[in-house]
Structures are given as C-alpha cells and as structure tokens.
C-alpha cells in the first residue's frame, strides 16, 4: 500500500495548500465586510470536474498498482514476457495525444478545420491503440499466458483492461466534442470541450506509460522495492 499512501500524501499536500489559500485561518465571526468574493470562479465547473475525476481515476489505478506490488511478493509470481506489440501501441497512444494537443492549439486559433482533423486523427489513433491492445492480448493468450495460469498474467489483463476502459470513456467524450463541432457550436464551447479531451488524453498517456513500465520492468525494480520495504520485514 506504499504507493497508495504516497499518492494520498501528494493529494493531501495539494489539498492542504489550496485550503490554506482559501483562508482556512480566517475568523468568519469577526468579519463584517460585504462579500468580497470574485463573481467568476477561476476555472469552469467542467474543468474542475475533470480534475477531480482524474484524481479519482489515478487513485483507482494506484490502488491496482499497490495490489500488484503486494501480490508480486508471493512465491508463485512468474512475470510473463511482454509482447513487443505493446511498444508499438505506446507509440500510437503518444501520436494520439499529440494529435489532440494539435487540435487544442488549433481551437485556440479558431481554426475549425484543423480542430476537426486533429480530433479525427486523435480519435482514430486511440481506436487503433485499443485494437492493438486486443491483439497483444491475443498474442499473450496464444503463447499460453492465460488469465488463470499465473497472477502476473491476470494482473496484466486486468491493468490493461482498466486502462482501456478509461480510453473508451474518453472516446465517448471525444465523440461529443465532435458533435459540438458538427453542429457548429460557439467557439468558446468547442474550445472548452477540446481542451478537456486533450487534458484527459494526456492523463491516459501518462497513466499508460507508468503502468506499462510497471508491467514490463517491475522485476528489474524489485531491488528498489526491497530497499523501501526493508524496515518492515
């Protein structure tokens, strides 16, 4: 649970700093000033919502990682070789993220055509990524690394599936952004929508990079893990 605790500590620090800035030390019973709060909150509600959601999703993935690291220590752990295809898929996901980044800046300029290209390209490459993941599963299964044959395999399937589901959810959001675009929504509306998708895509990419390196290289980090947990043995 070390990873989960580290994650929580990070959340606590950020929340703590934020709370402090919000005047947690003020004395409301002495205040007699008329309301001084700015009328517009600094970020739109949807963006704040996305931030909170990303935090929750990160927590979920970190818990998976924690479970992985605990289970890894048992005697029967035999990590499967990772299909080389995963490297290709990683590349595709990076491309997807870049395409959305491009769409985001196009939206900033107001270049609708470029936004559309970016969205389509980003969405397609995300779908390619998902198909690639499916093929990687097939490859694993054909090579005899089945879900039940070892917990390390099971974690491989569960972690990749959890990530893929988040990508799927993102595709739904992306489709909605495409819909706004088709309907010729106001540029402000479109900008926000594309912006949120892009942020989420970057989150998906970072999450994948972390999970992938964990799946592929965790055994090589075992010495580090051993040092960290040594005091408790």
């Amino acid at each position, binding site marked *: *649970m070390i990873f*989960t*605790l580290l994650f*929580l500590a990070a*959340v606590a620090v950020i*929340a703590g700093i934020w*709370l402090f800035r*919000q*005047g*947690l*030390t*003020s004395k*409301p*019973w002495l*205040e*007699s000033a*008329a*309301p*001084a*709060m700015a*009328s*517009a*909150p600094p970020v*739109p*509600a*949807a*963006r*704040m*919502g*996305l931030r*909170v*959601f990303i*935090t*929750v999703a990160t*927590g*979920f993935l970190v*818990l*998976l990682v924690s*479970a992985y690291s*605990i*289970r890894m220590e*048992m*005697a*029967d*752990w035999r990590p499967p070789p990772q299909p080389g295809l995963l490297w290709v898929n990683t590349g595709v996901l990076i491309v997807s993220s870049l395409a959305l980044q491009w769409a985001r800046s196009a939206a900033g300029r107001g270049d609708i055509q470029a936004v559309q290209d970016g969205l389509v390209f980003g969405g397609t490459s995300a779908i390619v990524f998902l198909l690639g993941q499916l093929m990687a599963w097939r490859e694993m299964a054909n090579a005899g690394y089945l*879900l*039940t044959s070892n*917990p390390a395999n*099971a974690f491989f399937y*569960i972690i990749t599936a959890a990530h893929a589901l988040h990508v799927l*959810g993102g595709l739904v*959001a992306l489709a*909605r952004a495409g819909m706004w675009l088709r309907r010729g929504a106001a540029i402000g*509306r479109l900008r926000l*929508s594309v912006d*949120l*998708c892009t942020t*989420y895509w970057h989150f998906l990419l970072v999450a994948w990079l972390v999970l992938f390196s964990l799946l592929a290289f965790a055994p090589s980090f075992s010495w580090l893990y051993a040092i960290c947990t040594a005091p*408790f*043995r």
Partner: protein
Amino acid sequence: MSSAAPGVQEVIPASDVAEAELYHPHSWLTKYVFSQDAKIIGIQYTVTALAIGTVALVLSWLMRVQLGFPGVLSFIDPATYYQFITMHGMIMVVYLLTAVLLGGFGNYLIPLMLGARDMVFPYANMLSYWTYLLAVVVLVASFFAPGGPTGAGWTLYPPQAILSGTPGQDWGIILMLVSLMLFIIGFTMGGLNYVVTVLQARTRGMTLMRMPLTVWGIFTATVMALLAFPALFVGAVMMLFDRLLGTSFFMPALVELGQLREHGGGSPILWQHLFWFFGHPEVYIVALPAFGIVSDLISVHARRNIFGYRMMVWAIVAIGALSFVVWAHHMYVSGMHPYFGFFFATTTLIIAIPTAIKVYNWLLTLWRGDIHLTVPMLFALGFIVTFVNGGLTGLFLGNVVVDVPLSDTLFVVAHFHMVMGVAPILVIFGGIYHWYPKVTGRMLNEGMGRIHFWVTFLGAYAIFFPMHYLGLLGVPRRYHDLGEMAFVPPSTATLNAFISLVAFVVGFAQIVFLFNLFWSLRRGREAGSNPWNATTLEWQTPETPPGHGNWGKELPVVYRWAYDYSVPGAARDYVPQNEPMPAPTRAATGQAT
C-alpha cells in the same frame, strides 16, 4: 468526466446562472421521476435508502429472534443466519447510511445551503441516483437467486467468501460484488457533483469559512469516499475474477471437499488491506456528515453560535486525513509486523484528539445556551452521548493487547453499533425532523417524534449496553447459537432474551416514525419558511418547499457566517446569513440587499 458535463453552462460561472437558463423539465416524468433537480434526487435517495434500510431492520429482528430464543423460528438455520448478518451489515453501512447522508442530505442541502441553483452537473446527478437504485435492485435480487444471498459476513473475506460451505456461494456473492461496483460507480458520479458544487457554485459572499458545518462534513466525507471507494472497487473486481474466472488474486491453494482447487498462491491478506482501506474511512464517511449536521442542530436549537468554528473545520479535515492511515487496526488478529501494529495503534489513538475537540466544542456550545428540547435537539444530544460512549470503547479496542482477546466477540459488535450504527442513525433522524418542514412545508408530529426518540434512544442503550458485558464474558460474534460453551454462564441466555425483546420494541418505534412521515405530509402543522428561526440559507428561500432553481429571480448574497444566534444588540435572536451588516455598516456601504 467531461462527457457528463451538461451543455451550456460551463462558461458562465455556475453561481450566476439565471433561473431561465436552468434545465427545465417538461413533463411529470422528467420532473419527478427522471429528475435532474438535486432536491428531488435527494428525496429519491433518502426514500430508497430508508426502504432498503427497513429490510435490514427486519433482518436484525430475525437475528435477534434466533439469538434470544434459539430455534423458535425453524427456518433460521446457521446458513440463513449468516446470510442475514451479511445483508444486514452491508445494507446498513453502505446502502442506508452512506446513501442517506451523502446522496440524501448532500443533494438536498449542498445547493440550498450554498445559495446555488442546483448541482453543477445535474445530468450526472440523475444518473447517480438511478445507478444507486440499480445497485439496490441487484442486491435485493440476491435474496431470490438460487442459493440465496451471500453469507460471507459484510467483510466478505476470502477464501471463505467464494468457497462452497459459505451460503450464497453460487449467485449471492456475485450479485453482492456487482451491486457494490454499481453503487461505487453511482456514488462517484454523485460525489464529483458534490465536490465541484462546493468548489464552484457557492453564491457571492459564501467563502469556505462561512459554510455551515453540515456542508463541511458532507464535503470532506465525499472527498474521502471518492478516494476510499476505489479500493473496494478494485477488490471487488479482483474477487469477481477469482470467483468467475478462476484467477488467484486472493485465493491460496486449498483443498475443498477433498479436491484441490485450481487456485494457488493468492493472498487473503491482500483483500483485507483493500477492504479496510475502504472500510475504515467508511466509518468517517458516515461520521463526518453526522458531525456537521449535529453541530448545526445544536447551534440552532440552543440559539448559540457554534463554539470554535475554525477548530471544528480543522478537526473535520484532520479526521478525514488521519482516517486513511489507520486501516490495519482491523487486521491485528491477522498478524503483522510489530512495528506496523505500533504504528496503526498510535495513529488510531491520535484520531481521538480532533474527535475529542469536537465533543468539547459541542458541550461548550450548549453551555449556558437557550436550549430548546425540540425533537431534532433530542436526537442531536442523543448522538453526542452515544458517540462518546462508542468512541471510548474504540480507544480500548485500538490497543493491540486489548483488541486481540476481544476481537470477534459481542464487545466489538456493541462498540461498532454504538459508534457507527446508532450514533449516525440518531443524526439522520434528527436531520429529518429538522429539515422535513423545508422539504414538505409541514412539521412532523411532535408527540410521535418524542415517542420515537425516547424509545429509540433508551432502547438502543438497553440493546447494546449489555452486549459489551456479553462480549467481556467471551460470547462470540457471528454465532448462530452458543451450543456447549463452558465459559459462558447460563445467565447470558436471559440477557440475550432481554436484548431481543427490546430490539423488537425499538423496531416498532421506527414504524411510528415511518407512519409520522406519511401522516404529517397531509396533517402536519404548516411550517412556514423558517420554523426554527435558523440563519442558514436553506431557510431563507422565497418559497417553501423551494421551487425549481431554489431562489426565484436573484441569488442570495451572503454577508456573514452561519452562526449569528443571540447576537447582542440584534433585533431578533438570529441574523440570517443573507442579511446585510447592521445599520452603521449599511449606511456606509449604501443599500446592499
């Protein structure tokens, strides 16, 4: 997530949405059934939760029949008894308490208390309720599935949870896990709403430190739940894999009915970590909203500002943070490194400090207050006594040496019923008596309320106080019957029978309450908009019950904190939050209303 965000509002700050731009329901169906109005959703959550809670109450009766008068009801065999225990515990903790306090009170009160028109993502909010309802339906379905509901205990410990011999092994456990996953998905959609609404949709002048403690409690608890529930989700997914697909996340190699199972090498302790990483914060997810509500009830009904508001807020936040580093105190008997035991015992005891601060502040608020013993106040006072009581036994159990012998005895059952069973339920009742007039426009009947309170409060003590004693005698928990136990004196049977009789009486008192809810809907005294003379915004709405969009044309503007009661020199003994500062200030700033 962005897909959940509603259409147009984003660019306009939610607090400035004009009434005309809100989503408007067009038919009876979208207004009252598939409603996106947080008030309706709150009522839906509360009613559903009370309904399923009644099932859990009936189950507790059946268990008490068996414990008090073993064998009287012949259909309660050991397997059935386990199923009853499991469903009773799970329903009470998750589907009743969590749902009412966050889904019910949270939805109804957050927008109103903050001066918002609604939650920021109304559509996701509606989905949240319907997913919750689906979770409840799946849970109830397990009663009718072949083999019945799971009997694994509410902690669902593997390996026994999915082995034959545990009732509900075929369908019960699957439906339970699926239902929990649905609950968590539904809650997450609601929880995002509560958090972002607090962050973004406060009306002008409503700084964080002017929020009523009820909102602070619900807000902090929601943040905790958003971080803790995923642990249960991960655990549930993995257990579902173990059960359905034969993986070995939690399942060690074992021989079942003479046959070696396909599992091997899994770690049951891993489940315990995941479960309690959710399970302990869950105690505070239930307790923090209760703390907040009680603070407000006491302040209103003692006509006194809350003592140490800042410290109350800090204590809520501190408790929320600390409760994430104590989970392993539920695992002392599972064995652990002594340093771990020491660490978790220490953190557990440290939580007592902010908690004690809260209790002192409540007492100091009451001190020389103008106490009105209204029904909500009675329940709030009942909560304080009960919570202190359960908290004290918790201090005992937090110590490894005390916990090990008492673990799995009725002492533990008595402890957690006091602290997280009875105490939050008393607050829920108090809250319902307090806010019912706002929800319906009518007061709940006072006489029935008093009967309900005294029978429930004294009855709960009569049930759970002697149970501590049974636990000290060594009477084990989760036992269908005691059989031949040399160390248990025969008098325990008498005591058990007594406890059961009281439990039936207490149960019937709840029927009085349910009846009151319906009866007062039509016959209750007209409440007016602010029957308790309270300061917080929900009592200042132009209509009662508040209309769609809550505030009519203009949002309220907040000038002061939520606790200006009995202010010296003020005309009335309370000053609403949206009342501009007194005359000299007003003259200086011009008319501000």
